[in-house]
């Protein structure tokens, strides 16, 4: 009797293992579904493989941007057709690049071309980054300071310049400025040049939100874990930028967070004039807030030019292309009238130094083709929508979506100073996550601003010390 029972139980246990296996695989799947798809497609062409093995190398690119995965695949096919060199593109799912890279690069067939996110990322991958100082790609860079370089060489070359600020819907702004009883004396959004004016306009708009037909001035300050990078990374860049500037440094072991009150200014403005109550923000995502702008529920949202797709793809969006404009993020710092958008990059190409020399050469050739041949440049400009930092692109070879155009307009305006992306020096993902968690608690009212400030200062020092060991 007992034996039978035991065997039933064992069967049950086995089934459970299978089920549990399925359960956890789903998590992994999110990270790798693109991978398997791709590698399946890859193994389908073994004939090519062997043909190429004699002489030329292969390219294996691990792509960071899931939103343009298909375009990279098209490009790979095109390049193979043109040159006969095999190109394999694998895309890491959103937010899983480091995980995917860690497991992919340990394989025999490792990525030959991958990307790092700046100096901090370089620290992690320095064993794998090839010196690129002799490549044409590096020589094409307009501003060589943007590259990740040390005394020993150049290890990461940025391939796209991005900018972020406050995106606003000019149609709603025009409606506001046309109001009889507006409380400000300026007459267009372009005249907002500092935090004081911004605050006055935003608060008066909130008072008139019924007249304007909006639910709030700002779209939701998305604070769901994993969706809070617009605040703990991008917005946090501004106070750090000004602190670095005051001290004349580009990195520090101990941040004082001297501009914490300025951060609070703008963050409070976002929270208090939003279409979502502060206590509900932990259920909102970045996509939600972009949709709120697209649907006309909100007039402003903080994000970068990569967000154009999120606006354009929303069903029933009411925002006209020519009304999508950028405004710098003003936080109430002396002299911010000449502040531009935050422009920089955290996308740097690196070549795997542990790959075979043929593969390395093939990878460099692929990237150089991409940024110098007519076909490559056409894809980069019109399909990937990248603003590149390379001199190979002519005036008329710039992306034409409204946000990219705005970024270019701000970059070319010599009276404005762009804010550099100093967040590439933030100590670690853990720091950002803890900062985001503190902001969430502040928004919900379970933490005071002083505690948030202390968290930032303490965590910065602790995390810098932890990774320095």
């Amino acid at each position: 009797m007992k034996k039978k029972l035991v065997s039933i139980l064992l069967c049950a246990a086995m089934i459970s293992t299978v089920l549990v296996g399925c359960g956890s695989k789903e998590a992994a799947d999110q990270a790798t579904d693109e991978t398997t798809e791709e590698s399946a497609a890859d193994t389908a062409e073994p004939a090519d493989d062997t043909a190429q093995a004699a002489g030329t190398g292969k390219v294996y690119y691990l792509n960071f941007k899931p939103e343009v995965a298909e375009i990279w695949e098209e490009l790979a096919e095109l390049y193979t057709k043109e040159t006969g060199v095999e190109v394999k593109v694998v895309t890491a799912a959103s937010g899983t690049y480091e995980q995917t890279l860690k497991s992919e690069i340990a394989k025999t067939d490792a990525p030959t071309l991958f990307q790092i996110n700046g100096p901090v990322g370089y620290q992690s991958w320095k064993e794998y980054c090839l010196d690129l100082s002799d490549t044409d790609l590096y020589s094409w860079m307009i501003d060589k300071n943007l590259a990740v370089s040390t005394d020993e060489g150049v290890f990461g070359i940025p391939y796209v310049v991005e900018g972020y600020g406050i995106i606003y819907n000019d149609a709603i702004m025009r409606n506001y400025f046309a109001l009889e009883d507006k409380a400000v004396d300026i007459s267009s959004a372009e005249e907002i040049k500092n935090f004081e004016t911004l605050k006055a306009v935003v608060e008066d708009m909130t008072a008139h939100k019924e007249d304007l037909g909006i639910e709030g001035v700002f779209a939701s300050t998305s604070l769901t874990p994993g969706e809070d990078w617009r605040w703990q990374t991008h917005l946090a860049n501004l106070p750090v930028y000004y602190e670095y500037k005051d001290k004349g440094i580009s990195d520090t072991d101990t941040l004082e967070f001297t501009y914490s009150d300025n951060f609070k200014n703008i963050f409070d403005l976002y929270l208090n004039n939003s279409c979502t109550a502060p206590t509900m923000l932990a259920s909102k995502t970045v996509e939600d807030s972009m949709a709120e702008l697209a649907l006309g529920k909100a007039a402003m949202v903080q994000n970068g030019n990569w967000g154009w797709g999120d606006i354009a793809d929303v069903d029933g969006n009411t925002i006209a292309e020519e009304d999508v404009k950028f405004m710098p993020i003003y936080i109430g710092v002396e002299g911010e009238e000449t502040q531009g958008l935050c422009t920089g990059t955290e996308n740097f190409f690196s070549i795997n130094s542990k790959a075979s020399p043929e593969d390395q050469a093939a990878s460099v050739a692929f990237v150089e083709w991409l940024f110098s041949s007519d076909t490559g440049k056409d894809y980069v400009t019109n399909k990937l929508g990248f603003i590149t930092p390379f001199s190979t692109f002519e005036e008329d070879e710039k992306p034409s979506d409204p946000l990219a155009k705005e970024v270019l307009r701000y970059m070319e305006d010599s009276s404005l100073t762009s804010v550099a992306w100093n967040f590439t020096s933030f100590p670690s993902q853990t720091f950002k996550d803890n900062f985001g968690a503190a902001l969430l608690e502040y928004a919900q009212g379970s933490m005071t601003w002083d505690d948030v400030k202390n968290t930032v200062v303490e965590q910065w020092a602790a995390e810098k010390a932890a990774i320095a060991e």
Partner: protein
Amino acid sequence: MERTLKKYFAVFTVPTIIAFTISFVIPFFMGVYLSFCEFTTVVDAEFAGLSNYVKAFSNMDFLNALWFTAKFAVIAVVSINLFAFLLAILLTRKIKGTNIFRTVFFMPNLIGGIVLGYIWQLVINGVLAKYEMTMFADAKYGFWGLVILMNWQLIGYMMIIYIAGIQNVPGELIDAARVDGANPLQVLKNVTIPMVMPSITICLFLTVSNSFKLFDQNLALTGGAPSRKTAMLALDIFDTFYGRIGFEGVGQAKAVVFFILVAVIALSQLALTRRKEVEN
């Protein structure tokens, strides 16, 4: 019989042994070795002694997660087994539609943890939205959310095991007890429960180890928010591994500690409940 078994032993077991070695034994020992190393990828490890273990306990994250996990495990194990057992008793009463009920209760177990996590996140946030709140307003919502989720997922499964056990209780034993004048409660306490002790052992083992190892549901439901207050051990290990540069080894060290902990708890639970099993 014996001889043929011996003859074909290799044919039947070697493939499994090879698969088991590749996917379990080797990674396990590699993992233990890596916990003493500094590494970015598993192929370029450098020996670093015990420093990873020192770092693992240098802040309170791991201990907080341990405390949270322990609290969760106690509540979840008790509630899951209690409800599962009650359902099992109900559904062995020859009520109409028993099979449908059994299937329905078992179904949540067929859905993956990540999916369940997101579904329950929507449900709980939807309910809390009435009070202008989200699940991340306080760690207690996340805690009870996890308890509810795990109950929902595991009760049906444990119920099936208990049903199997209860159906195997010999009818003559129960009849004899009745003849001797035992009331239903006494039958349950003195006949049924001792007889289903093997099921209880298995169910306790599964719930204890699942509660301690819980990861997908935790990741999807709360992701540790607010401020890592609802992060369980497995999630803390994951965050350590990927959260900081150069902390892969520390995550690995935590994982080794985690393994020892779960093994000790699960094995002592097995030994304890085994002792109560009776032969029929």
